[in-house]
């Protein structure tokens, strides 16, 4: 409570200072609004875990496109700005697909390179852009066509964006983006199409940056390529990082702070007129201190929004315990068949020609010494990476190489050996992520706040809450997942997998870190799931648990299957004993 109190003071202070400066000098308002929009553009990508520095480049495209349309074609700005934004969108779609395959720093550099290419292109097209001088965009009559300050429209655009970001953050899309931000692999195995969301975020960022750029052009009234250089890209990123990439209002506060600070310093330190660098030094110092003392940015100062568990509890009108009985079999033959599956990493074979099948309703144990390839097998089946060779048949259809989110929505859910929860999200929210593919309201629907969305969300929350209570986690529903004990986190992982309503459940060492009582309870729970029609593949080192719950056991060693059969059978198998005990 105290935390959020302080945060409101900080926010109010920033707003007050900005308001004061803008009253004093109304034209600074344009700058503030444009920076805030640019900050949102950076946020759109950062929030989706994309370290993109492309905003300055897109702002340049937006600015020049709108200016050129306004001057050369004489379009009014209410036409030229949308056209410029559209141009940014097209460019983003073209470069997004290849570029977004890159991670972290590589993406950063690549998008920086994009910005440079845009900047150099501007210089190289003097007939269109005025080249490095930019002058012919801003002289004489053309200047009148270009300079059209539209502070009200600008403010309106920012407000509209705020609404869209707010509505998105409350929607299925917002949740999916948060999940991707925390853990893209786990998000994919929850049925979220990570590629589409990342491209969407990149596109949104480009459109918003283009909008800011177009307004910039008309606000400032003259352009040259230097307006969008590297340091601008860095400034924009600073707004978003200092503001915090966790919540949409953070970057706006960040922009507010970092726009106001240099102005305050300029006016406040003017008595030191022979030390004109001082404001910049203080500004740099403030940036450092701010990020050191608020590593999560301004947004992190605010208390996390409650995930409304109590509300969901009250709404748990759905009968049952949140666990749906598994659906009836659709096809004859084994449910999952793995045929000659191999996977190697840089020449080292982690899986070698493994074949086995799982019948519906079975619980299969997958055991083997460390490094035997158990997790690799689960990763391959769940689509984290494709096999090097071999087939995976799911209900008769080959699914090897399919994207993880498609496999997940096809009915295969998994848990992870090393816990992969969405750590900063609440337990309830973690589980609601599992409902992703069953919530059908589109993003536009969320923006319109359709009643159907409210209904779907409420139902998902209620169902998730029931599941949480069934697993004995009811009191923890509002907790941040990362704050839970190890054993509780494991249970949340299983609950999250169940929320997908899978027909096949892949559990990777579900009992690791649990004590005997917890392990025994887990065993009972797995057996109950089996009774309700679930098919389960479980990797475990607890042999007691395996012997108790499994119908059949598959043993891997050095990537190859060395045995398969009923528990007693396998426990007497020479090769298995050798592998485990290292007998000659």
């Amino acid at each position, binding site marked *: 409570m105290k935390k959020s109190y302080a945060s409101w003071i900080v926010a109010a202070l920033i707003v007050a200072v900005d308001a004061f400066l803008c009253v004093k000098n109304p034209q600074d308002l344009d700058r503030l609004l444009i920076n805030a929009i640019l900050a949102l553009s950076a946020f759109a990508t950062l929030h989706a875990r994309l370290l993109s520095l492309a905003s300055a480049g897109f702002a340049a495209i937006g600015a020049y496109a709108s200016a050129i349309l306004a001057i050369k074609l004489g379009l009014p700005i209410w036409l030229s700005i949308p056209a410029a934004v559209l141009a940014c969108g097209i460019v983003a779609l073209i470069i997004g697909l290849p570029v977004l395959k890159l991670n972290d720093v590589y993406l950063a550099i690549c998008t*920086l*390179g*994009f910005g*440079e290419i845009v900047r*150099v292109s501007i210089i*190289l097209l003097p007939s269109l852009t005025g080249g490095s001088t930019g002058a012919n965009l801003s002289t004489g009559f053309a200047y009148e066509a270009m300079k059209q300050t539209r502070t009200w429209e600008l403010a309106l655009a920012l407000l509209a964006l705020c609404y869209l970001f707010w509505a998105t953050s409350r929607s299925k899309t917002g949740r999916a983006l948060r999940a991707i931000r925390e853990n893209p692999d786990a998000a994919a195995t929850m049925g979220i199409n990570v590629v589409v969301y990342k491209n969407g975020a990149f596109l949104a960022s480009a459109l918003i940056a283009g909008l800011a750029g177009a307004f910039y052009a008309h606000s400032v009234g003259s352009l040259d390529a230097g307006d969008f250089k590297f340091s601008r890209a860095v400034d924009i990123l600073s707004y978003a990082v200092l503001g915090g990439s966790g919540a949409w209002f953070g970057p706006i506060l960040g922009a507010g702070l970092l726009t106001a600070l240099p102005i305050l310093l300029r006016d406040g330190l003017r008595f030191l007129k022979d030390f004109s660098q001082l404001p910049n030094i203080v500004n740099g110092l403030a940036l450092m201190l701010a990020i050191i003392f608020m590593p999560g940015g301004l947004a992190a100062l605010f208390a996390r929004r409650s995930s409304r568990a109590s509300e969901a509890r009250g709404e748990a009108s759905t009968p049952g315990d949140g666990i749906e009985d598994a659906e009836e079999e659709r096809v004859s033959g084994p449910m999952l068949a793995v045929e000659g599956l191999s996977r190697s990493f840089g020449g080292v074979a982690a899986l070698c020609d493994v074949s086995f099948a799982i019948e519906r309703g079975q619980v299969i144990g997958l055991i083997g010494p460390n490094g035997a390839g158990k997790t690799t097998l689960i990763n391959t089946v769940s689509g984290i990476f494709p096999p090097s060779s071999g087939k995976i048949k799911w209900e008769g259809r080959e699914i090897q190489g399919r994207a993880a989110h498609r496999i997940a929505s096809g009915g295969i859910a998994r848990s992870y050996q090393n816990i992969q929860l969405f750590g900063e999200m609440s337990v309830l929210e973690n589980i609601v992520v599992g409902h992703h593919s069953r919530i059908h309201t589109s993003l536009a629907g969320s923006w319109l706040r359709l009643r159907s969305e409210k209904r779907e969300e409420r139902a998902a929350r209620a169902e998730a809450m029931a599941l949480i209570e069934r697993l004995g986690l009811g009191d923890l529903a509002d907790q941040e997942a990362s704050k839970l004990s190890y054993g509780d986190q494991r249970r949340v992982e299983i609950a999250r997998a169940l929320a997908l309503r899978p027909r096949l459940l892949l559990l990777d060492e579900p009992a690791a870190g649990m004590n005997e009582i917890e392990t025994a309870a887990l065993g009972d729970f797995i057996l109950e799931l089996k009774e309700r029609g679930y098919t389960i593949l479980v990797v475990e080192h607890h042999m007691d648990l395996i012997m108790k719950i499994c119908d059949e056991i598959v043993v891997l060693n050095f990537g190859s299957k060395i045995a398969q059969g009923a528990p007693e059978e396998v426990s007497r198998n020479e090769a298995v004993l050798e592998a485990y005990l290292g007998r000659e």
Partner: protein
Amino acid sequence: MDLSLFANPVFLVQNLVDGLSRGALYGVYAMGFTLIFGVLDILNLAHAATFMWCAFAGYLVMAVGGLPLPAGLAAAMLAGALIALLLELLAFRPLRREGADKLSSMISSIGASLILVSLAEAAFGAQTRRFPNSVLDPKPFYIGGFSGVRISRAQILILAASVVLMVGLGLFIRRTKMGKAIRAVAASQKAARLLGIDVNGVIVVTFLVAGALAGAAGILVALLTNNIVPGMGNQIELRGLAVVILGGMGNIEGAVVGGFVLGLVETFTIAYAPGGSDIKDAIAFLILFIILLVKPNGIMGRGKADRA
């Protein structure tokens, strides 16, 4: 394409010499940058400002103090190590303690960079500083007569330095005990700590080495270009990033090779492409763009465990 130029072997060799020395300059700069990335996974955007301060340190010692080149080099490397140490203690370590993400470190380094550049502007003014000719004779050598290939002393120096520093750093990282500790920390700070390695101590050493490299780069670039201004870091910063990516993040030999590649590409674009000097910047980044898309880990990219 200007075909007559292709037929001219002197012009070709000349471009090779110019391109390699241009590239050596990028490579030396990028080595320290990539070292910090390899070990800590952070982009130290204050590296360019460190580099600039070192150029000034060398300038003060040689041009103002009148000391010879080795003293200038030593002063620059010392200054670099010192500034890098300050950066580690003031800008990076507090964030590591907080367990903040890597973006925060980047922002912190941006703040530090702003401070360093502004301090330099305040201390040295905006006017360009230049070495007197007594520091390093600007007259080039000519190979094959006056119309032959020319190479200046500064070019020879930077080519030699880039190779010496690359080999030296490679040996340090691979052969010495500290080098092994650095690699261990690069692979996993947690594991290194379990092995009893003083992680913070190793990171300090890493920064000292990276700073000294920035120092060497600063003084060499200053000698080659003879143009020392507080903004000199801005110009090389972007190219440094490009080179680091080309060579594979955290890969020291890669940084030097990447530097040579970029230097040669730029020089040959200027020399042979029509309107080449206009498009060289775009070409450099276009190539980078394409390489990243084809080989996302750089031309000499390796796994993280092999880095640094």
